[in-house]
C-alpha cells in the first residue's frame, strides 16, 4: 500500500502558484526525499500532506484516507523552523504535544520519559525550554515528532544545528524507526544525506515535479559519466575540453563530468604523460548534487 498519494494537486496563494499539478507517490516503509530549491513549494506540499493546508485542486491521501484531522494523528512533524513553548518545562511541552496527537496523558508521560532518557535529556526534563542549548532544543523537538510513534514521519532539515555525534544519533533513530515500519519524508538541501538515506526522491521546482522516482534508477539513468580523481602533481592534465564537460574541485579530489561518448581512458593517458601520480581513478554515476543543479538550472534556462 502507498503511504502517501498526492494526485494532481495545485495550491495558490493570491497570485502565486505555490504548487502546480503535483503528483507524489510514496511507498510504505520508504525513506523519501523531497528536494527542491528554496521557494519551490516543498513546505506547501508537506503542509498539504499534514492537512495544515487544503489543496485548491487535486487530492491528498494518507494511508488510503483523504488527509483530514484523523490522519493528522498518524503523522509526526519536525518543521524546519524550530520552536517550542519557551517558558514551559521540557516534559510538560512534550506531554502536551503528545496528548494533542491522541495519546492519553498517562501514556504520553511514560513515552516522553523514555525518549528523554534515550536522547540523554532526562536530567533536563523539569527545565524550561529556554534553558536548553540549541542542540538540546533540537532533540526535544525531534522527540515531539516521534513520541506518538507515527507511521508517517515528516522531517524538514532534521540535522541542521546538530553536532556529528547528535546527528548520528538522530540518523540511527530514523533508520531504526524505518526498520519498525515507519515511512519517512525527508526534506533537505543536503544531497549527501539524501544519497545516504533515501530510497526514492522527488525534485520539485516552481511547484512542479521535475524529477521523481527510485533514487538508484534515477542515478543509473544518467550512466557512469563522472570520474573521481585523486592525485598529486600538475593539474594541467585536466585541460581536456573535448573530453570533460565540467570540473568540480573538492580540494583533495576532483570530479570530472565527461562529455557524451568521451573515453575516460584518455584522461588516464594524459595524467600518465604529464607524470601526475594518481591515488584514485573511479568511474561513477553523477552525484545527486549535480543532477539537482542540472535539473534546476535547466528549468531556469
Amino acid at each position, binding site marked *: 500500500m502507498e503511504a502517501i498519494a498526492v494526485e494532481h494537486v495545485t495550491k495558490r496563494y493570491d497570485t502565486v502558484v505555490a504548487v502546480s499539478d503535483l503528483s507524489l507517490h510514496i511507498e510504505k516503509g520508504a525513506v523519501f526525499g523531497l528536494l527542491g530549491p528554496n521557494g519551490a513549494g516543498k513546505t506547501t506540499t508537506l503542509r498539504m500532506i499534514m492537512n495544515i493546508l487544503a489543496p485548491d485542486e487535486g487530492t491528498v491521501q494518507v494511508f488510503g484516507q483523504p488527509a483530514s484531522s484523523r490522519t493528522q494523528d498518524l503523522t509526526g512533524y519536525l518543521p524546519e523552523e524550530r520552536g517550542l*513553548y519557551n517558558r514551559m518545562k521540557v516534559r510538560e511541552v512534550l506531554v502536551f504535544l503528545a496528548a494533542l496527537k491522541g495519546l492519553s496523558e498517562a501514556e504520553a508521560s511514560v513515552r516522553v520519559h523514555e525518549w528523554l532518557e534515550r536522547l540523554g535529556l532526562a536530567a533536563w526534563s523539569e527545565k524550561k525550554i529556554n534553558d536548553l542549548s540549541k542542540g538540546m532544543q533540537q532533540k526535544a523537538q525531534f522527540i515531539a515528532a516521534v513520541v506518538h510513534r507515527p507511521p508517517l514521519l515528516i522531517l524538514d532539515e532534521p540535522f541542521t544545528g546538530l553536532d556529528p555525534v547528535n546527528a548520528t544519533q538522530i540518523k540511527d533513530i530514523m533508520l531504526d524507526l524505518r526498520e519498525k515500519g515507519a515511512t519517512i519524508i525527508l526534506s533537505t538541501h543536503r544531497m549527501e544525506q539524501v544519497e545516504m538515506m533515501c530510497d526514492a526522491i522527488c525534485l520539485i521546482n516552481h511547484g512542479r515535479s521535475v524529477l521523481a522516482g527510485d533514487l538508484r534508477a534515477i542515478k543509473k539513468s544518467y550512466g557512469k559519466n563522472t570520474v573521481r580523481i585523486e592525485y598529486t602533481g600538475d593539474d594541467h592534465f585536466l585541460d581536456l575540453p573535448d573530453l570533460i564537460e565540467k570540473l568540480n574541485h573538492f580540494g583533495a579530489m576532483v570530479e570530472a563530468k565527461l562529455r557524451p561518448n568521451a573515453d575516460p581512458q584518455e584522461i588516464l593517458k594524459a595524467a600518465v604523460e604529464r607524470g601526475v601520480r594518481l591515488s584514485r581513478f573511479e568511474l561513477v554515476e553523477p552525484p545527486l548534487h549535480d543532477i539537482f543543479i542540472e535539473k534546476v538550472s535547466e528549468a531556469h534556462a
Partner: protein
Amino acid sequence: MRKIWLIVKREYLTRVRTKGFVLSTVGLPLFSVGIFALSVGLATHKADHPLKISILDNLGGLASQIASSLNEKLPDGRPRYEVVGSWDRPASEQVAYQDLTRQVRDGQLDAFLEVPKDILSGKKATLHSLNGSDYLADRSIAHAVNNAVIVRRLSDRGVHIDDVSELMNGVDLTLVKVTRSGESEENGQSELVQLSIVMILYITLLVYGVMTMRSVLEEKTSRIVEILASSVKPSYLLTGKILGVAGVALTQYLIWACTAGLISAYGAAISSAVLPGATPPKIHLPIAYLVYPLVFFLAGYFLYASIYAALGSMASSDEDLQQVQMPVTLILVACFIVFPVIQRSPNSPLAVALTLFPLSSPILMVMRITVQTPPFWQIALSLALCILATLGMIQLSARIYRVGILMYGKRPSLVELLRWLRYT
C-alpha cells in the same frame, strides 16, 4: 473536543501560574482594601483629641448657648469640643483678650472664639487659633455661633426660648436614590462603585483581549504554531485559546468578587477592629452589580478576544502588534471615556444607542444599569446583539487566524485580508 480541552488546560495553567497573574489578582484587592481603609481612616480622623476652646463673649449671654451647641462627639465617644474658662461680658475686653491670646500661644487652649458686642447687628465673630484653618472645626463653630445669634434675635422679638429650640430643631438633607426595587439611601458611594465597575470592566477587557492577542503571536514567533496546526484544526486552537484565557479571567473575577463580598459583609467589622469606635462608610453592593458586569464581561471578552486573536495572527512582531491593535484599543478607550454621557443622561438616545451597540455595550450597558436600570428588554437586546456579533466575529477571526498563523513577514493589507477570508 478532547483536543480543545487540552489547549484550554495548557493555556489556563501556564497563565495562572505566572507571577503576573498572582500579583494582579492579589494586588488589586489589596490595593482596594488599602484605599478603603484609608478612606475610613480619613473620614474618621477629623481630630484625634478634643479641642479645648474658650469663648470671649463681649455681648454677654451667648457663651453658654454656643457651648451647648458644640455637642459633636469624636469617633471614640469623647466630646469634640471642650469649652473652658469662658468670659461672659468681661470687665475689660482688653485684659480678657490678652489673657486668652496668651493661653492659645502657650498651648493651654486650641482656640478661642471672640464674639463682638455688636454681633446681633451683623458684626462677625472671630476664631483665634494657632493653625488658623481647620475647615471642619470652623464650620461647626460657625454653625453654633449662628444658632446662638438666631436664638437671641428671636427671643428678643418675644419668641419663648423653648419654642426657639423647637423651631431650630435640625433638618438635615438625606440623599435618596430611587431604584426599581424601592428606595435605598444614597451615601455618595454609588458614583464610586459605578466608576470602579466600569474601570474594572475596561481594564479586564483590555488586559485579557491583549493577552489573547499576545498568546497568538507568541505561538507564531516561537514557530510552535506549525506543530500545533499539524495536530489540531486552527479553529480548535483559536477556541481553546480564547476559552483558556477566559478561564484565567473568570478565576481572577471570582477571587475579586469574593474579596468584594467579604469587604461588603465584614467591612464594618474589619474597620472597627482597625479603628475602634469608627463608623465606617456602609458599602452596599446589590447582587446585580456583581452579576451584570460578569455576564457583560464574558460577552464583551469573547467579542474582543476574537478580534484581538485575529489581529495577533496578522502580526509577525511586537511592532506589528502595536500597529494592528491600535484601532481596537482606541474603541475600548473611547467606551471608557464617554461614560459621563451615560452617567448624566442614561436614557438619552445616544446613551441607548451606545448601550446597544456590541462594541460599546459590554462596558456602557453595565454603567447604565448602575446609574439607572433600563427596561429589561433593553438589557436583553443589548446582550443578544453582543452575542450575535461575537458569533459572527469568531467566524471571521477563525478564517483570518488559520491563514495568518502560517504567514510571516509583511502585515496583510485590507485587500489581502479580504482574500484570506475567501481561502478554502
